[in-house]
């Protein structure tokens, strides 16, 4: 897991490895290193400046509890996160915005991660719904996730005490066992929460370049004002604009397919340049590909079935015209066609739920005179009796390596 205390927006992080030790949890592991106090069964920081987060923030609590427990987990004025006999309650400005009955909380104590994340609501229509909150509850023993959401006004409390595991010293104390507490300044998505508190995913093998926003200071920082050096601003802006070249590059093909078995298709033609493959009109598409991309990553969800035979080839073509017998214009462009092929060896049966993803890899991109690319699928099914495509994705890729994957070329 990622160390939750090292997050740059962490305002407070308390940990009791064995659970329930308030003195241990009072030690602040965040970068601030400002410990808080134990007072009559709760943790308190009086008139807490770091907890004065009226808008965006995230509260994470890891506890052992069951539906017989109750009490407050976090309190800042009349804003709180609490439990009540199987319910988890989020309160903003004295009103309960979420009261969620946890489905996976029973009569026996289990470990739960409770995360309450708040951010501005882009769909706001008035001050009353200017913010939105996500409540994610993860049963760490059962590995289940639950979620509730609500919109609300900005939290109005200020200059209040930050209280953990109660609403005040000696009041509304949480009756379960707390292990870990964290207050963060930013909104954290559930994906981030899972990576931080549950398990870190394994590193993927990527195709092409990776992109992540390169942050630029806002004007409000004053970094671009007169009497400041201009070079640094232009330098980071140069980095940012270079990282934005694929910002809008979404999938060119992103579809789930009908249940028909493609082996029944009559909308086909044998590939004149490779008689092993039959091309299917029902999988012919003309789509644009982001101009910053020079490859397209192709995946299909393939189901196949035949007695005693398991192997079939799938090919994705990309060309500047729809196949070798397309209608040429009076002065046609050179015919340009590329393809990638993959083999899958599995017998899925013909049930409604079979199949698996096949990653065909990256195909070079050919574009017609209007900038569109023609994609289609072909199959070398040999003795496979039944097969069908249940999903098909083509995503733009910017590949920097010099190799040329797949086959094809100028015709």
């Amino acid at each position: 897991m990622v160390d939750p205390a090292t997050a740059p927006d962490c305002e407070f992080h308390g940990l009791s490895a064995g659970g329930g030790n308030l003195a241990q949890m009072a030690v602040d592991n965040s970068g601030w290193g400002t410990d808080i106090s134990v007072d009559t069964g709760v943790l308190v920081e009086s008139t807490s400046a770091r907890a004065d987060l009226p808008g965006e923030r995230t509260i994470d609590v890891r506890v052992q509890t069951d539906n017989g427990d109750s009490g407050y987990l976090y309190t800042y004025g009349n804003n709180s996160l609490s439990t009540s006999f199987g319910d988890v309650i989020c309160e903003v400005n004295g009103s309960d915005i979420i009261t969620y009955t946890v489905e996976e909380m029973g009569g026996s104590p289990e470990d739960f991660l409770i995360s309450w994340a708040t951010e501005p609501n882009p769909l706001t229509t008035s001050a009353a719904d200017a913010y939105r909150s996500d409540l994610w509850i993860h049963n760490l023993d059962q590995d289940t996730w639950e979620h509730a959401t609500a919109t609300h006004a900005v939290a109005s409390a200020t200059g209040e005490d930050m209280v953990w595991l109660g609403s005040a010293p000696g009041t509304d104390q949480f009756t379960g066992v707390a292990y870990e507490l964290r207050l963060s300044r930013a909104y954290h998505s559930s994906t981030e929460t899972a990576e931080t508190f549950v398990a870190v995913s394994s590193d993927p093998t990527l195709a092409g370049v990776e992109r992540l926003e390169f942050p630029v200071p806002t004007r409000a920082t004053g970094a671009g004002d007169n009497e400041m050096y201009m070079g640094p601003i232009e330098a980071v802006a140069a980095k940012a604009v270079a990282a934005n070249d694929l910002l809008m590059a979404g999938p060119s093909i992103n579809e789930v397919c009908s249940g028909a078995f493609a082996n029944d298709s009559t909308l086909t033609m044998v590939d004149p340049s490779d008689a092993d493959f039959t091309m299917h009109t029902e999988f012919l598409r003309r789509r644009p590909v982001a101009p910053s991309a020079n490859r397209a990553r192709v995946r299909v969800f393939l189901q196949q079935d035949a007695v005693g035979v398991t192997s079939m080839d799938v090919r994705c073509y990309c060309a500047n015209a729809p196949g070798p017998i397309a209608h040429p214009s009076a002065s046609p462009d050179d015919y340009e066609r590329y393809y990638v092929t993959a083999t899958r060896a599995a017998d899925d049966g013909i049930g409604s739920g079979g199949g698996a993803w096949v990653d065909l890899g990256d195909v070079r991109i050919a574009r017609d005179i209007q900038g569109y690319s023609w994609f289609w699928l072909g199959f070398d099914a040999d003795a496979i009796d039944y097969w069908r495509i249940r999903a098909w994705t083509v995503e733009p890729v910017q590949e920097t390596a010099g190799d040329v994957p797949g086959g094809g070329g100028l015709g």
Partner: protein
Amino acid sequence: MAVYLKQSTFTTKDAQRPQVAPLTGGALAKRSRAMAVMRAQDKTTSLGRRVIGAVSMAGSLTWSVPDTDPDNATQTHPLTGEVRTVHRMRCDVTPGCFLRLNLVYVPSGQTQVEVAAGTDYDAGGAGGSVRVDVEWFNRDGGSITTTHALATLASPLEYGASTDQPWVDVRSSTVLFVTPDDVVQADDLATWTEHVHAEITVSHVGGVRMVDCSVEEHTRTVVREVDDDADLWTSHMFAAVHPDGDAPLVRYPMERLVDSTPDGDPRGGSWHTMDVAAAQRLRLGPQLIGWSAWNENTADVTDDDIPEVTTSSATFVRVVDAVAGDYDADGPGWTLGGYARGYAENHPYWSAPNGSIPVLVAVYGACESNSAAGRVRVQASDSSWVEVVIDSRSFGWWLGYGHLRCGVAPGDPSTVQAFYRMDSGSNGLQIRALGVYRMGRYAPAEI
């Protein structure tokens, strides 16, 4: 007096990567080096080609328009001129872009005219068209509806039969500019290039046999009025006419070209460079999913709108095929791109193996009964989903905002599946279309 800045980006398709080293410490300050950054900011919005939505054969093997004699006692073919909706989409249009309608088809079949309802139909002639109706919403609260259409060739075969050589007979056609009316003058262009909202309907008219149809964005023109809000400047608008055109004289370094309010020219300095960088990350991102329940195999020629998928289940079932009720990363689904990841949501301290992006999920649906409610869940991992609640009998768009797990880049696959269920009430929950796109924390032109 309004002062407009206009750039044509129609032919722009190359990203620029301004050099960083000459702008760092110890390097000689030169105007040209800063100008390269501003010019590069003008090219970002032209690099999208976002596919807003698509409807295709999607593996269907038969045409809904039959090969049979249309002179019949029952309706077997579409009625001549009747509009049959096959897809609905919504998006916030990338500033500077308008839409295109792209069609791949084989020659169209016959239609019918109704002589006596339910008892007598005559041949109405072969042929048809695909049309796109767009309701555009601008940031001033105005809206306008436009209609564009593509006529298809008619089948020359008896009864308008479908070709037995689809690879030979496949055709393509494109409406290059699906735009609001009168986007010629600068003030109109300013109104319709300020991150407007579009609700799109694609329909068949006549005996269309469509292989693939998509609506996508294409860059054209961007106009800004100098007093526009800072977060609307997704382009720097530095050079005149087009991003590689003549540039104004920048007295490097300075904050802006004309430092007066109102009607000061914000271009050319560090303030505006920072604003544009922020606006691009705020407002630009990919369109991810645009699904329609329409199916060429099963659609009936009498359907005048998308035949909805329906569930009355109190537990989640998959929208597409109702096979499964639980998310399965190894099952069929859509994908989410990984190029739009923001820094704050994907801080390097945790995000090396994973990604997350903010999305808007839009569902075109309804409940079959009054006082009923259902929900649609779009799920990208065991711990990442966004839900949309639907509680009306009237078909319409229902929205949900949240954050979905995405890949780090292509090669890191993401699988997205949609589920739906009834929460309360009787009968079922109906869905005709579903869309997902990346949405930053900006106020959209229309909710």
